[in-house]
């Protein structure tokens, strides 16, 4: 076909192999969960650190980002 010689304006991009993604996904996923836990839930129902310092420090962000706060 003559059309086959015409380059596509937008070809399907080459995807990144899953094998290459997994280590990053596991590491960044775990790290993100820890960070989001401290912003969104620490010293609410569960507390890894005693007191209410973390809760009070991120208090406004927690309310405005929509997390259940207190």
């Amino acid at each position, binding site marked *: 076909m003559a059309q086959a010689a015409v380059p596509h304006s*937008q*070809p*399907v*991009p*080459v*995807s*990144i192999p*899953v094998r*290459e*993604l997994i280590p*990053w*996904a596991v590491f*960044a*996923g775990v*790290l*993100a969960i820890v*960070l*989001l836990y*401290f*912003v*969104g*839930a620490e010293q*609410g*129902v569960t507390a890894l650190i005693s*007191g*209410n*310092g973390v809760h*009070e*420090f*991120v*208090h*406004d*962000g*927690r*309310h*405005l*980002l*929509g*997390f*259940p*706060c*207190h």
Partner: protein
Amino acid sequence: MVRNLLVRGMLAGLVAAVLALVFAWVFGEPELGRAIVLEGAHVGHAAEEAAEPEPFSRAVQSTVGLATAVGVYGVAIGGVFALVFAFAYGRLGALSARATAALIALGAFVTVALVPFLKYPANPPGVGDPDSIRERTVVYFALVAGSVALAAVALYLRRRLAPRYGGWNATLLAVAAFLVAVTVACLLLPVIDGVPAHFPAVLLWRFRLASLGTQVTLWAGVGLIFGPLAERVLTSRYAPAPALPA
């Protein structure tokens, strides 16, 4: 490649967080401050506050505290966003990097922020029974997880239906299936109403609108800032080598 995308995702998340912070500061903080004044006027809560002293002043909470919370949230979601993008790019058909990023941001906003907000909207201080915090936390995070899982199922469904019904119809069917499933999930989850009888309706509405606007700003920022950054990484790898001069 993945490393470059991850770095750019966290960067896009940080910049988006700055934009969201400005929005939250301008529209959210005044309402939050008003709610705290009302909360302080409430006798029952005043006694509770006296038992547990505040470790940070309002000035710290509304500036450094808010910035830290939104900034950490932005970097974290930006990183995860980049990895979801790295998986999705090239697996959603012939979408450009910018279009892929915008689409993921829209999907993430709907599943992570909008769906949970519609069932369990953000509450200003003074709204919500402190005794129900356990239940509220569990159902909130359950809805976030459920909504993301249902979106993943809908994407899989779209992939299966596309050869038979065509891309457009398959997308419509998958979106419809997601909406039905999410609606059923929301109906099954318990109703939680912790708004005190005399809490001002306008204040509640404005606070919730500000909260939703903060999320919209954040996700729109991540999607639109990450797209061009990712495109630069991807084209530098896949672009055909320039013709050498003879």
